Structures are given as structure tokens and as C-alpha cells.
């Protein structure tokens, strides 16, 4: 039950993420974090996302906007793809079952 509710609520943010491209690193990072949390809740988080978020924050703190944006974009990509993987795999795994 819980799982289903979570799954449905997850479908929304993906479609919005295209907008993030125009935003600054802070906004991109916020999106990345939100989506990453959603992937985590489905036990589908990627271990690369959080370090990228942290690196981007450090670059922001150091005043390196370009580097911060590049890292934030990568963090967002990995977060989005991890959530997409979670969604796709809901059905896709069945095709791999041996003997099926």
C-alpha cells in the first residue's frame, strides 16, 4: 500500500526537471536532492548522487558558479535517472526471471 502511494507520487517530479536547466546551481541542487530522496525511499538511490551534491555545494561556497552548476547538473542527471530506473524496473524485472 505504502509503496504504491510513494510510487505514484514519484511520477510527477520527472516531468518538471527539464525546467531546472535554466535555474542556478542552488535550484538545480534542490531539485536533485528532492528527486534523490524519492529514489532512496524506493530503495533505488545511487551512491554517486550525494557526493556530487556535496561537491557542488562546496564549489558554490567557494564562489565557483560554473563548476557548481556543472556538478549540480550531474547530480540532477543521476537523481533523475535513478528514479527513472526505479519506475522502469517495476515491470521490467519480470522479463528477466529464469524459466519465464
Amino acid at each position, binding site marked *: 500500500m505504502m509503496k504504491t502511494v510513494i510510487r505514484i507520487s514519484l511520477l510527477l517530479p520527472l516531468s518538471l526537471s527539464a525546467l531546472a536547466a535554466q535555474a542556478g546551481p542552488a535550484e538545480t541542487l534542490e531539485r536533485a536532492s528532492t528527486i534523490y530522496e524519492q529514489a532512496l525511499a524506493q530503495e533505488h538511490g545511487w551512491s*554517486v548522487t550525494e557526493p556530487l551534491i556535496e561537491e557542488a555545494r562546496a564549489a558554490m561556497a567557494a564562489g565557483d558558479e560554473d563548476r557548481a552548476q556543472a556538478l549540480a547538473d*550531474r547530480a540532477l*542527471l*543521476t537523481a533523475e*535517472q535513478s528514479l527513472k530506473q526505479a519506475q522502469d524496473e517495476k515491470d521490467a524485472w519480470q*522479463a*528477466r526471471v529464469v524459466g519465464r
Partner: protein
Amino acid sequence: MYAQQLRPMRTLSALVLTLAAITTQAAESDSIAEGREIAADRNRGNCYSCHMADGAQMTGNGGPPLMQMQMRFPDREVLKAQIADPRVRNPNTVMPPYGAHGILTARELELVVDYIHSL
């Protein structure tokens, strides 16, 4: 007179052209070397965990040997697509989607493609 003045100029431009050619060639082999390094790196490409390739050590065999790549992939873009997202060609592949999942950055991907295409 004009001709006389022109001659050294021509020699100079020829020299510049030759230099340019040499540097592009150097740049090309640099990119291949860097691509090879990325492909071998366990934290980036790690391609040898599944592929045999000329000069690579301790290679696995989950995928086909990477050889005669220009012949198999005359179009560099097709090769790039295989590395960026092998699922497009084979949904059941075990090869990771290096571009689609951001395993390699766009720059790293180009370098790896250069290297693989040189095999």
C-alpha cells in the same frame, strides 16, 4: 619584387600549416591516450572488466573483444551510441549505459570513443 616578398611569406605559411598538422596529430594521440586511461580506470570506464582489448591487462570476458572497431563501426556516431546507451541496441544488455546514466561526462565519453575507434 612582389614575388620576392611573397616567397618568404609562403614558406612561413607552409611552416605554420605543417606545425598545425603536427599539433593536431599530437592532439589526436593525446586524446586516444586519455581515452585509454579513462577506459581502463576502474572508477570510470572499467571497460576491461568485460572486454579484452589490445594491450589491456586482467581483462574479463562478459562482452566481445574490442578489436577492428573502425571496420565494425565505420560510423563513429554508431560506436558512440553503443557506449552511451547500449540498451538501445539490446534492451537486455549487461553493459552499463555510460552516457545515459552519467557514468562518464560528455567529454570523457568522446575521449573513450576516440580510443575505442582507434582499436
